[in-house]
C-alpha cells in the first residue's frame, strides 16, 4: 500500500514538473534578438531566473554626434547612471510569462527621455511581438511592433 502511495506521489510530482518545464519552454519563445519598428536598436531578450529581460546589443547611431563618444544613458533621471553605456543596457525588465502568448508585469525604458513605462508583451506570431508601453492603464499607451532577427554566421577568416 505504501509503495502504491509513493508511486502515485512520484507520478504527480513528475507530471507537475513536466508541466513546469513545458511552461518554461513556452515562455522561452521570447528569447532571441528583436528589432523595434524604428530600426534604431536591436534588443536581445534573455532569461534570468524565471523572468525575462532585454538589453540593447546594437544601435543604429552608436556614437554621440556632438562628442564623438559612445552613447550613454545621458537622460536617466538618476544622475549617477548617466555614464552607463547604452550598448548593453537592460531596457526590458522583469517580464513574467503569463501563459498563452503574453509576458507581463515588466517595464520598458526609453533612453530618449529617461522614462520607464509599464509594459506588456504579446507574441502575435513566432517572429512578431506587440510591445505595449503604458502609463497606469493600458489605454494610455502605445504599441510598437518588434520583429525577430537571425544573426548571420560569421565568415571564416583565412589565416
Amino acid at each position, binding site marked *: 500500500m505504501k509503495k502504491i502511495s509513493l508511486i502515485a506521489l512520484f507520478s504527480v510530482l513528475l507530471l507537475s514538473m513536466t508541466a513546469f518545464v513545458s511552461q*518554461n*519552454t513556452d515562455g522561452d519563445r521570447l528569447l532571441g534578438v528583436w528589432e523595434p519598428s524604428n530600426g534604431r536598436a536591436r534588443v536581445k531578450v534573455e532569461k534570468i531566473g524565471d523572468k525575462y529581460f532585454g538589453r540593447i546589443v546594437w544601435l543604429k547611431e552608436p556614437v554621440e554626434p556632438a562628442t564623438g563618444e559612445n552613447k550613454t544613458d545621458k537622460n536617466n533621471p538618476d544622475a549617477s547612471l548617466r555614464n552607463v553605456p547604452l550598448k548593453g543596457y537592460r531596457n526590458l525588465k522583469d517580464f513574467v510569462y503569463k501563459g498563452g502568448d503574453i509576458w507581463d508585469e515588466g517595464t520598458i525604458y526609453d533612453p530618449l*527621455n529617461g522614462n520607464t513605462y509599464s509594459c506588456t508583451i504579446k507574441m502575435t506570431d513566432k517572429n512578431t511581438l506587440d510591445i*505595449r508601453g503604458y*502609463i497606469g492603464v493600458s489605454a494610455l499607451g502605445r504599441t510598437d511592433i518588434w520583429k525577430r532577427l537571425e544573426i548571420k554566421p560569421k565568415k571564416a577568416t583565412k589565416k
Partner: protein
Amino acid sequence: MRKLHLIFGLTVLAAGQLRSQSDSTGTEDDFSMYNDVDFVDEGAKRYCSPKIEGLSPAQLIYIGYDVQGPYSMKADPLTNRDGNQISGADEMEMAATHGLRLGCNIPVISTTSLVWQMGFNYWQTNFEGMEQALPVGGRNKVIDQHRNAFRTMGLNTTVFKPLNDKQFLLFQGSSDLNGDYTLSNIMPLRYLKYSGAVIWGKRPTEKKQWGVGLARTYRVGELNYIPVFMYNWTDAANKWGTEILFPARAAVRRTINPRNMVFAGFELQGQSYRLYKDETLRPEDLEIRRGEIRLRMEYQFSVKDFLWVSAQAGYRINYRYHSDRLDGGKETLRAFGLVSDAPYAMESTLTNPFYVSISVNLVSP
C-alpha cells in the same frame, strides 16, 4: 524503494539542468555579431515613427487656464440682411478674458503601421467688464452677447499612416461646436464646424521630419482652405530644434534636458462663434469670426514622470473679430478676398493685450 529515490533524484537533477540551460546570467556579448542580421520573416518591413528625437512630448490629457489682460473692443453699427442698421456703434473696455481649457487625446490604435487617436476638447471664454455705462444709443447687440461665456466643445481625430521607413501620411480632423450656448442648453449639432488637414511627409533622419499638405481651417476665424507646411527638427547635440506646423504654429525649441524645454514662437488661434443664446438675435444667423495671433514664450517641464506643466506668456494680436451673417445658412468663403469680398454684418476692432496660460498635462509614451 531505493530505486524510487534514485529515479526521483535523477528527475529533479534533470529538471534543474533544463532550467539552468534556459538561464542567461548576462555573459558579455561580442556586440559586433549583431551588426549583420536578417529578419526571420522575409516580408518584414520597417516603418517610420510619428515622432522624432527631441520633440516635446504629446499630451494625452490636459487641463489649463488662459487669461488675457485688459483690451478695448470697438464695434461698428450692426446691419440686418437689407443693410439697415439694427444696432449702433459701441465701445467696451474689457477688464479681462479668461477661461478653462481641457482636453484629451487617447490612442485607439497604436501600432507600427498605423496610429489612430481620438480626442475631446472643451474651451471656455469669459468676458469681464460688461457692467460699464450704456452708450446713448444703447448697447450694441453683438457686444452685449459677451455677457455670456463663449464655448468650444469638440471631437478630433488624428491618423498617422507610415508608408515605409521614410514617408508618411498624416490626417487630422475635428468637429467643433462654438458659440455662446450654455452647457444646459447646447446648440443643435447642425452648427458644428468641420476642419481638417492632410499632410504627406518625409522623415529622412531620426531628428528631422517635414511635410506638405492642405488644410480646411477656421484658424483665422473664418473658413479657409490653405496649404500647410510641417517641419520638426532637432540638432545633433539635442539642444535646439523647431516644431512647426505653418501657418497654425511655429516655435524654436531650446532643450535644457529632455524634461525641461523652452519655446519661442507663435500660434494662430481662431473660432467661428455662433450667437445662439439671444433668441431675438438668432434669426440674424450671426457668427463672430475670431482670429488671433499669439506671440509667445513657453516653458514645459516634467513635474514627476509623465506629469508635465506648460506655462506660457505672450502678446495676443487681434487678426479679426468681425460678425458675419450666414447666407441661407451657408458660410461665405472669402479666401482672403480672392473668392469674395462680401461685407461683414459688423466689423470690430480690438486692441492687443498680454496673456498668460498654464496647463497640467499627462504626456504620452
